[in-house]
């Protein structure tokens, strides 16, 4: 650095005034969409490699079946199906989309992100990025999209949660082989005359990074690949410390869900649906108990036939509850995502 020679610091020109973008306004969810791959995988197909039984899996997870994507079916393929459905439900076209947020941890390219390619397929050149927040990714996306709409940086935001977990699951791992499934869910967040998305309660706990984690860094894969290409441990599947996650999810997340209700300015009685991340039916049931939710509030249990689809699970469950008339359009839903990071986010939304 050369020493300043001027005796006075530079002054702003003061000749330009930034345009008022019309913010701030309210936001709401105006459409949802879902996609489950065609192939249904029953527990019977999983059990041999983990020396288990259909009954054992049902008791520990509530899962009867899941969907697996075809080998040549990508997260972008699945995301496209769900996105088109959400756009149709919302009644908006590709050129109205002002931002594309894709929550995923199983897009197999570290770069480029999945979102720009998805946008292009839909016929959009909107700004587009991926969110790496695992099972909390969709709720993170809804929160960010809501703020974008409120702040005026986009009119309509496409939020997608999509996972092809079958690519990153160790079929021999008794702790996780039966848990995961593939699928995509999407929503459109847009402007509203009244508040449609409550304040988000979110956070992270990076101290517990190892509780759910890819088993190796890619740089480690490069080294071990040279030594043992046949060794299945080389592939960085996702591993999980089940008990640790269970404790955190139930006793750590129930208060977060309660805070989201409180911050939204409503009571639990006002809810028309509870749509937690579909991690495990045991987590869902224990969370409902901890929250002391009124018994008549419908609770998403899409996990039974969809399994745990990480970022995709909440929009998949939301779409199903709306389609099957279990939750009303215009009703209030509490949604909470939580997962690898560890990270979490919860908010109350008005259902589209």
């Amino acid at each position, binding site marked *: 650095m050369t020493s300043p020679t001027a005796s006075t610091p530079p002054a702003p020109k003061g000749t330009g005034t930034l345009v008022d973008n019309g913010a701030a306004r309210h936001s709401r969810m105006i459409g949802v969409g879902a996609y489950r791959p065609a192939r249904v995988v029953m527990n019977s197909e999983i059990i041999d490699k983990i020396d288990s039984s259909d009954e054992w899996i049902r*008791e*520990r997870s509530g899962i009867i079946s899941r969907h697996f994507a075809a080998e040549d079916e990508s997260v972008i393929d699945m995301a496209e199906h769900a996105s088109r459905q959400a756009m149709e439900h919302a009644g908006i076209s590709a050129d109205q989309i002002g931002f594309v947020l894709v929550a995923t941890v199983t897009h197999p390219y570290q770069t480029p992100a999945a979102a720009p390619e998805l946008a292009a397929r839909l016929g959009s050149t909107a700004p587009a990025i991926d969110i790496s927040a695992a099972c909390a990714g969709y709720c993170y996306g809804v929160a960010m999209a809501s703020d974008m709409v409120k702040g005026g940086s986009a009119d309509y935001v496409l939020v997608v949660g999509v996972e092809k977990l079958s690519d990153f699951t160790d079929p021999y791992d008794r702790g996780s082989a039966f848990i995961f499934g593939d699928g995509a869910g999407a929503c459109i967040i847009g402007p509203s005359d009244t508040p449609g998305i409550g304040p988000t309660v979110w956070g992270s706990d990076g101290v517990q990074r190892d509780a759910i984690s890819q088993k190796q860094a890619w740089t480690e894969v490069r080294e071990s690949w040279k030594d043992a290409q046949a060794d299945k441990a080389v592939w960085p599947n996702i591993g999980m*410390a*089940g*008990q*640790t996650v*269970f*404790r955190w999810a*139930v*006793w750590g997340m129930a208060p977060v869900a309660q805070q989201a209700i409180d911050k939204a300015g409503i009571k639990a009685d006002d809810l028309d649906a509870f749509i937690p991340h579909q991690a*495990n039916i*045991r987590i869902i049931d*224990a969370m409902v108990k901890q929250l002391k939710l009124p018994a008549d509030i419908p609770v998403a249990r899409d996990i039974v036939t969809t399994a745990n689809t990480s970022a995709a699970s909440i929009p998949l469950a939301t779409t199903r509850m709306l389609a099957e008339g279990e939750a009303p359009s215009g009703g209030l839903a509490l949604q909470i995502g939580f997962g690898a990071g560890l990270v979490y986010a919860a908010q109350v939304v008005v259902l589209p």
Partner: protein
Amino acid sequence: MAQSEQEILDGLAEIVNEETGIDTASVEMDKSFTEDLDIDSLSMMTIVVNAEEKFGVRIPDSEVKNLKTVRDAVTFISGAQA
């Protein structure tokens, strides 16, 4: 406020009963949680969290795998209370 081992056993039996429906009388010192009482890992964690609250102790995740028998749990809780 350390409790006797019998008091801890009785309290633990109530927690196990509430989570699993197992008769409190069956929750005996030498019973294994998994093999004798057929309690799975997630129910075990629920029992652990409820025991923390009831007995005012902290049972770390890393300790849970060492609690194989009812006696292991009673001894740990008793030691943690001391």
